[in-house]
């Protein structure tokens, strides 16, 4: 079996296996898996509206995935994408609401505010890691909680005790009548282009810039980077800044595109944590993140259709979706299995 064939077969078999095991779960629970999967398919691709919503859902996943992947590439585990996303969301919502400016200034300013807020939230663990060797995983986890409750408090202040900020001005909005009409009045907005632009930015930094060469050196081998005269500290700080900025922009998708404001939250959005899986599914490459995010985004959005169209309770749906992703992520096992089979064939 050639390597190329294996590379194609692995994801295909992974998804099929995931679907099969998911079907067993539905059967055992007394639901019709065929109806369930038809509902899932329709939920993702069924009509223009579904497609629009799916793409809308994918945008923040791409950015969250980029944030995690970028940090991974430089040897850091940024588990704080969730918190960076929340502060980014808030910053964008605030700038979008508080200022009145022409669109050409207002929208970029709001995006920039989100990126800056995320970057600062990433900078703190970066600084602590670089100067005091505090492990970034601990700090970023705690920063997530701080972000969640600080932002909740700020929203209440802004809303005079209410639970959500005022809507942003149109001049700061990513909403697009054109995209919306194209997709049967879905909430699809320009955010997907921001996300794809950032995919390019990450690729450009890592593959074209001097900074990328240094970041990757530090990520692969800190000692050799130090030997080559690079500042390990500076690179750790830069990596967390950039990673945080990507995460902040993921928040801007929600603030300026999907919701147009921010409400107090009882818990995390989950997008930041799913970003870890997205990055790993995409092997931490910019393009891989797009694929990982597409899988995550479509399953997450399409699954919403399963309770309505096939009467499958949302709990079962969550299990099925998790199983599919689980099998895709364990592609390694399938790869090894395939190689065993082809080896045995050769031996004969």
């Amino acid at each position: 079996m050639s390597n190329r064939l294996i590379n194609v077969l692995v994801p295909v078999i992974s998804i099929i296996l995931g679907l099969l095991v998911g079907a067993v779960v539905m059967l055992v629970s007394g639901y019709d898996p065929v109806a369930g999967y038809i509902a899932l398919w329709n939920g993702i691709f069924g009509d223009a509206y579904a497609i629009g919503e799916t793409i809308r859902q994918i945008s923040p996943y791409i950015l969250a995935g980029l944030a995690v992947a970028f940090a991974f590439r430089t040897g850091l585990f940024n588990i704080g994408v969730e918190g960076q996303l929340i502060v980014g969301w808030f910053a964008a919502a605030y700038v979008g609401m508080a200022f009145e400016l022409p669109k050409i200034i207002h929208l970029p300013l709001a995006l920039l505010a989100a990126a800056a807020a995320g970057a600062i939230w990433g900078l703190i663990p970066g600084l602590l890691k670089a100067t005091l060797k505090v492990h970034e995983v601990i700090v970023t986890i705690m920063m997530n909680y701080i972000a969640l409750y600080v932002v909740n408090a700020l929203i209440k202040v802004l809303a005079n005790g209410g639970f959500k900020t005022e809507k942003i001005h149109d001049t700061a909005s990513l909403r697009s009548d054109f995209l919306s009409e194209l997709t049967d009045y879905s909430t699809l907005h320009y955010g997907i282009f921001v996300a794809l632009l950032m995919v390019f930015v990450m690729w450009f930094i890592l593959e074209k810039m001097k900074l990328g060469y240094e970041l990757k050196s530090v990520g692969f081998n800190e000692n050799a980077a130090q030997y080559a005269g690079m500042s390990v500290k500076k690179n750790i700080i830069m990596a967390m800044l950039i990673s945080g900025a990507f995460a902040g922009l993921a928040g801007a998708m929600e603030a300026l595109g999907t919701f147009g404001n921010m409400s107090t939250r009882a818990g995390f959005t989950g997008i930041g944590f799913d970003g870890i899986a997205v990055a790993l599914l995409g092997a931490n490459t910019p393009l891989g993140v797009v694929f990982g995010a597409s899988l995550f985004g479509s399953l997450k959005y399409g699954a919403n259709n399963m309770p309505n169209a096939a009467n499958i309770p949302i709990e079962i749906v969550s299990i099925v979706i998790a199983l599919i992703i689980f099998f895709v992520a364990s592609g390694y096992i399938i790869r090894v299995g395939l190689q065993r089979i082809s080896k045995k064939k050769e031996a004969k």
Partner: protein
Amino acid sequence: MEYVIEMLNIKKKFGTFYANNNITLQLEKGEIHALLGENGAGKSTLMNVLFGLYQPDGGEIRVKGKKVDITDPNVANDLGIGMVHQHFMLVENLTVTENIILGSEPTKMGMLNIKDSAKKVAEISKLYGLDVDPHAKIEDISVGMQQRVEILKTLYRGAEILIFDEPTASLTPQEIDELIRIMHKLIEEGKSIILITHKLQEIMSVSDRVTVIRKGEGIGTVITAETNPEELATLMVGRQVTFKTEKGPSHPTEEILKIENLVVTDYRGIEKVKNLNLSVRRGEIVGLAGIDGNGQSELIEAITGLRKVKSGKIIMGDKDVTNKNPRHITENGLGHIPQDRHKHGLVLDFSVGYNAALQSYYQKPFSANGLMNYKEVTKHANKLISDFDVRTQGEHELARALSGGNQQKLIIGREVDRNPDLLIAALPTRGLDVGAIEFIHKRLIEQRDNGKAVLLISFELDEVMNVSDQIAVIYDGAIVDTVTPAETSEQELGLFMAGHNKSEIVEGNDGAVLKEGDDDHV
């Protein structure tokens, strides 16, 4: 004659490349049989075939005359074949006994039975004179002792045939003597040994017969007593090799490195360099001789800016570079071939090309305005590859995929190509074969002849004697004496290295010494 192992016409193919092509090796009972070949000649592949890690694509293996199919290492174990790996497979924070029983832990009613095992380990240790404490933790014992644990592990599992893979690569001269004694003892007790090495002296002193392979092909088997190092080297490399490095007299001029009363501590805060004074001039090679762990690593790290200096001064040219950062010192004219090429010298997951630019990537033409110019990086890499004979599939190949010798050539190329005023070469030939060593020595002498200075750190006395113009002997963090090769002998250097005519040998120094330098054997 009875053969305990016969590997007949073994073939092993990777893709279209034959790593082994028709290699025959026959091991007699009770002999030490050396397997000689350059780095990348296919020695390890052949042994991995024997040990069941690879399946041969042709040929057959016989154990005691019976054809066998060694499908995995467990089969090899059952056939009494044991391997002492070059990079030890030991768990640092477990004890000797725990490491030895790992994988086949004996139990008594479901509980781990360490006591009996420890007793058995102690017995075997005594029988073969290994002198290993079954209860010592691996992290607390020396590299030489760790190797004996590896030997014990194979004996414990009933090995009759022991494969030693480059066993002396990380040992001190004393430990090597000890190892040779142990190997003879093993033979006395009826074991047979295959010794993989590219060190000719070792082969001459311990082996009974030698099988030579070159570029994957079996060249033949000779009886050690009927050959000599020159003949072996020619067989191995395929051409005449000069052992005595040719060089003219040195013409030293002004001082380029001056170290005054230097004190450097290690990571625990213990002083490893103590009031050291050293001077290196343009146009000379100063060899720093000494046993591993006498402060060499800390000294190099201090000069190159990788470690902070506690007190004293390091002056390069006319500038004080004490406690400056590595880049500052590099730009001041330093080239550095680090002692651990995997830890400091290379980013193994970078391509050869990226590694070739590691010290100069931030300068023109490799980058400008924050952007890399990878075209120039590639061009530069290709130049180094051809100038320094780095055998690689191309500049895009990962550094990890290169053999040790070629990794080292890449580093040397990168450092020498920048034409530094002072080149620090730390163990530049460690683990390399004679061909590569010859090449590297020539390059060092070339630097000297071009009016540059070289500081060579080596644990190999003949390397220091051959290449240096001045020999400074380091012991316990200070220079004992500085002599020229002409006015000294290996015996005298050996005494200096042991601290003689300076003070009494410090009791128990051995243990502390050996803790160093074992970074890559974890």
